[in-house]
């Protein structure tokens, strides 16, 4: 009988260890999702203007799931130590609900990563950057957000357009309706600027002379952070779910063995 008692002890130990790991992962998930939601790269207005900011919704869900996992892991540890059937039942039910939410968040983040293509941001940039005032307030708000974000992107990352400055020449745009091609073949933020924010040589920039305009596209600067966010939320979430799945299985098995 001592052997089975040891076996039970070991099983309890494993469950407690599993719950400790879940608790720590919950804290990590919360921290990671808070970082993403804080939008350190300032790219949220671009997502908002696509009217599909689900990777941010996924990150928000991740914050609350992380807290829930921490709380439930503590409940689980207490339940296993006391071998209390009621506590463990509550734990299992709440954990299943949390599991479902986290699953939704991961799937959302993973599928929406494929939504973020260069053409999506190109179309948005051409239709909304420097759009003259028109339409309803929501439209105006989105255009302003896109304009500010693009100006900041071009200044900070020394880039122009999504694929390059040629985007402004290849396609018509809201920008083109206000600014003539002769004076602005592309926005002046695409020119190499001096410390006061003026182009160092406007003629050289307009003609496309190397050294006076930014020839790189900004897509890498947009997609890099967004992909990291989507993958971070999705795959870390999936990893936690895999672990949680086995701990849940073990807890269910343990619960079924408790005698009243």
């Amino acid at each position: 009988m001592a052997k089975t008692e040891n076996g039970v002890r070991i099983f309890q130990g494993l469950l407690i260890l599993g719950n400790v790991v879940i608790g720590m992962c919950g804290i990590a998930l919360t921290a990671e999702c808070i970082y993403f939601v804080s939008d350190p790269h300032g790219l949220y207005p671009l997502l908002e203007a696509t009217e599909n900011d689900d990777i941010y919704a996924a990150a928000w869900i991740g914050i609350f799931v992380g807290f829930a996992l921490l709380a439930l892991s503590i409940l689980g540890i207490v339940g296993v130590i006391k071998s209390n059937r009621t506590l463990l039942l509550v734990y299992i039910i709440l954990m299943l609900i949390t599991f479902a939410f986290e699953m939704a968040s991961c799937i959302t983040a993973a599928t929406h990563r494929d939504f973020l293509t260069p053409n999506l941001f190109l179309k948005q940039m051409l239709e909304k950057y420097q759009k003259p005032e028109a339409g309803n307030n929501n439209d105006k708000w989105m255009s302003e957000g896109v304009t500010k974000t693009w100006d900041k992107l071009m200044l900070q990352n020394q880039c122009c357009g999504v694929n390059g400055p040629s985007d402004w020449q290849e396609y018509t745009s809201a920008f083109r309706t206000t600014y003539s091609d002769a004076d602005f073949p592309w926005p002046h933020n695409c020119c190499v600027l001096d410390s006061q924010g003026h182009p160092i040589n406007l003629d050289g920039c307009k003609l496309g002379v190397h050294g006076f305009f930014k020839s790189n596209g900004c897509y890498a600067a947009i997609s890099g952070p967004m992909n990291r966010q989507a993958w971070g939320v999705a795959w870390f979430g999936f990893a936690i779910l895999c672990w949680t799945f086995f701990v849940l299985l073990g807890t269910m098995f343990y619960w079924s063995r408790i005698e009243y």
Partner: protein
Amino acid sequence: SFWDWSLQGSGMCGCCVVLKPQLGDAQLATNNPTLTTVSLEKPFCMFDSSLYPNRSYTIYLYVMKESASAMSSLVTDDSNKPLGSTFQQTSRGQLRPYNAAFFDVPDCAVPPRLADVRSFVHASYVLKQYLFRVGDDGTCLYDPNFLGVCNPPLAPDTTYRFKYVLVDNSEGMVKDQTLWSDPIKTRRAKLPMKIDTCVLVFLLLTGFLASVFFAVMRSEDASAETKGTSPTVQQSESRPQLSSE
């Protein structure tokens, strides 16, 4: 090309004479032509054989849409004086060539050094010396009564041809002219609506797998409860107790 005439100016090459306006060097000016502008090399050393010392000359630039007929491509009148047709008069170059600009004869002996473009201080000077930008100035379009020489933006997706004409200032007569340039087409802009944003939607098997796992778990629970001989765990406050048998 630029290098052809600079060699010719130094007397090293007698065969590479270019007698028509050329686009600016593509390695230097990468954004050329644009939607509404075309930057041409100025006519360095093209009219050297016609220049006499102690006389002043002016270069006239004529622009014509390629669709204008060959009959109407004259730039001089019967007395060999340059036609003063303007942008508005010629229906934007549709009917006949129009005079877009005139400027001094570029100095063949001292061509601009393109390497100086890298210097921020000299870049503007070098570019202005080397290139002329057709379509640069749209301000004359805003004044409906303006009848002077106008260099407004060209039409997108349209083929144009250009010609330089050498005019003697005192006589006002055309002394020499280049051939019409090769057809040069301005860029075309596509509509953003045509950009395809395909969204890849794929079914995740994980949801399906999760439901399978849950079904397996439920059947495991059911089978565990039917086993009566395996050790069970008693609910207790301290150490777990096995069922005594």
